[in-house]
């Protein structure tokens, strides 16, 4: 296992093959939940936990499951896992469950989980599958948190509101009023705002990528011409 394999997985998850911005998977929870930064973060964390677990199990059983029935087996594994996590959390971590509990049933229908099971975990060993789960989960969390932050900022002019739901009462002071006397812009909070903001984020990522490509091409040309000069 080389470092470059891990690096590729990490880069894919966080940027090059980001679940939300590139694969555009799991849009239902993405669009529904991200009305503020804290919700996006919560959904991201809950999904990452499930994703790592399901990637681990699916990678471990990949050699004994025949191809014809792999999808129903994956569905069984994921549904069981999510149910178990939901129940175990409500029994042993009730406070955390109160915060993340509403997100967990939504994860069953997130095609990100089965997408990674099919595209990665069922073809790679357990270590790589776990790393992929972490990387993809972080990428998802990052995208959701950004989307939530943008919508909250545009909609209400605040950031980190309701952080107390996740980090306890002390976190109430985390809430930042970025603009004072902000006239709320409700469209950002309502469903259309989710689509518009996500669209802008994808466009922004494409612009950054195009710029990086152009710069790389330019650097290559400069390199080539300087080599040509030294040859003369």
């Amino acid at each position, binding site marked *: 296992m080389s470092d470059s394999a891990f690096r590729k997985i990490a880069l894919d998850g966080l940027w090059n093959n980001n679940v939300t911005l590139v694969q555009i998977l799991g849009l239902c929870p993405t669009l529904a939940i991200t*009305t*503020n930064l804290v919700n996006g973060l919560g959904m991201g964390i809950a999904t990452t936990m499930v994703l790592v677990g399901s990637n681990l199990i699916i990678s471990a059983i990949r050699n004994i499951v025949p191809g*014809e029935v792999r999808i129903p*087996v994956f569905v069984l594994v994921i549904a069981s896992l999510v149910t178990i996590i939901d129940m175990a959390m409500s*029994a042993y971590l009730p406070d955390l469950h109160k915060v993340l509990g509403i997100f967990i049933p939504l994860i069953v229908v997130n095609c990100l989980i089965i997408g990674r099971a099919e595209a990665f975990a069922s073809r790679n060993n357990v270590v790589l599958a776990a790393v992929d789960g972490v990387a993809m989960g972080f990428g998802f969390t990052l995208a959701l948190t950004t989307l939530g932050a943008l919508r909250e900022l545009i909609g209400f002019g605040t950031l980190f509101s*309701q952080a107390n739901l996740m980090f306890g009462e002390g976190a109430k002071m985390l809430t930042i009023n970025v603009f004072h006397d902000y006239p709320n812009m*409700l469209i950002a909070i*309502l469903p259309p705002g989710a689509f518009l903001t996500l669209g802008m984020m994808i466009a922004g990522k494409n612009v950054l990528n195009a710029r990086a490509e152009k710069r790389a091409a330019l650097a290559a040309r400069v390199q080539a011409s300087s080599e040509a000069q030294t040859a003369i």
Partner: protein
Amino acid sequence: MFKKLLISGLLLAVFAGVGTAAVSFVHDKALPRINAEEKEHLLETLHQFVPPETIDNDMYSDTIEVRDKALLGTSDPITVYRARKGGAPVGLVLTAVAPDGYSGDIKLLIAIRYDGTLSGVRVISHHETPGLGDNIDSNRSSWIESFTGKSLRDPAEDQWHVKKDGGQFDQFTGATITPRAVVKAVANTLRYYQMHRDELFAPASEKPHE
């Protein structure tokens, strides 16, 4: 070919079996804890409205079930938790439903003192629009606390509306339907209480009002 089918089918059955077994195992292990956790949480919520030092009965077990679709918003039986001191009624806590929220039922926990004033209202569950209607949630705004201390005499019964409808209670910018539904449900619950107060505090052995 046939053999392959058989193996696949069997494997699928094995996974279904293992999955179900794992889920039911965790369920068995976790259920008592979940129930205990829920009971504790409920008691904590009940005691928020009815301080434990003002009562001497076990509210969690001193309950009756009532049913009134028109005033309590649901045709399901509703559990009423009664608080007493020295046998005399102190107050009660019940869950009512506001059936006409913007999207679906809003479940409310309503605590009423014996004299008919509200000692508090909380939203238990709702599906209102995030950022708009969900300000009824005590986590998001203090609006719901405006009910504390109110009764059908104060404000007068015809003032139990949101301001937009000529009443006393604030609505939210961009969301009138949600607070309107909550105000109506709380007023209806108070009306129900007024009509049935004695039955509501009747000892548990008697069959209460249906």
